[in-house]
């Protein structure tokens, strides 16, 4: 009996590893945005949101990804921003 398989290593199928690694590397390959440029966008987005709300910096996630366009299913690059808001500032 293969003990490694028995003790759960088998659920980490190597093809899933390949797929995950591939997906990550492709996000960067597919964008013409340099990491520096992305950092600049991030900084600006955070600054704008902060004017209206307090945000959770720990949970912040802004990155490039690839998704299918809803209207026709054509794959497109998208900038996805997940900015958790802890408290909305009161309107003046």
């Amino acid at each position, binding site marked *: 009996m293969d003990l490694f398989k028995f003790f759960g290593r088998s659920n980490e199928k*190597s*093809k899933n590893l390949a797929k995950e*690694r591939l997906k990550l590397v*492709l996000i960067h*390959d*597919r964008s013409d945005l340099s990491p520096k440029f992305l950092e600049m966008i991030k900084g600006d987005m955070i600054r704008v949101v902060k004017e209206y709300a307090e945000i959770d910096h720990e949970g912040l996630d802004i990155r490039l990804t690839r998704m299918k366009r809803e209207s026709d299913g054509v794959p497109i690059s998208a900038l996805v921003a997940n900015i958790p808001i802890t408290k909305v500032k009161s309107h003046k």
Partner: protein
Amino acid sequence: MGKAIVITSGKGGVGKTTTTANIGTGLAMLGYKTVVVDTDIGLRNLDVVMGLENRIVYDIVDVVEKTCRLKQGLIRDKRHEGLYLLAAAQTKDKTAVKPEQMVELIDELKKEFEYIIIDSPAGIEQGFQNSIAGADEAYIVTTPEISAVRDADRVIGLLEAKGLSNPKLIINRIRQDMVKKGDMMNVDDIIDILAIELLGVIPDDEAIVISTNKGEPVVTEENPLSAKAFRNICRRITGEKVEWLNLENGESKFSKLIKLLFSK
């Protein structure tokens, strides 16, 4: 007017030349007048895979430089009616042909042939640019490896930028035993990532190695699973709707047992 199709991949060694040879031969076997064109200048190989290496007099550079007439440059495959090869130059440099010259050449070929299958060199430099210059459609060959799929993705982007949108995918060297164990990305995994239309799947098959040794594309053989896969691809190219080949049922357990018993 014929249709020009470029076979490309980005990464080397995934089976572009073998695929070109088999699709070209398969289309000729279906009765279509077909020419296979090797654009890998300096590293020509389509001639040996087709088994026509001893018949080359002129090559693609001679044709575009008009050292010879187009008809003189075409090598007729005597084994298959309507099948021709235009070989790459072996001694010249990749810059010997320009994209404009390729467009002109392919346009000429489209007057004579129903299908023009263009074998692209590995890489994304000028040789690649030349190979796609005159093409109407592009087929991407990949294997189920991270590196090949990554390069395929890059090439898809480059093709779209050049106006060759909607390329089709050929997945080569799938090993069903490894896919089953979860140790190889399967067809769905790859389609999911590349998000392009699938044209066909070729199993990893010893028969291809053997047929390449002989200089006779595997598609001409009756039984190998890879030959059936290539024939299906050819029929799909001509517009026929063909069911997906079951890559596991190439050989039943019973016939494997018989083989095992008699091979001793």
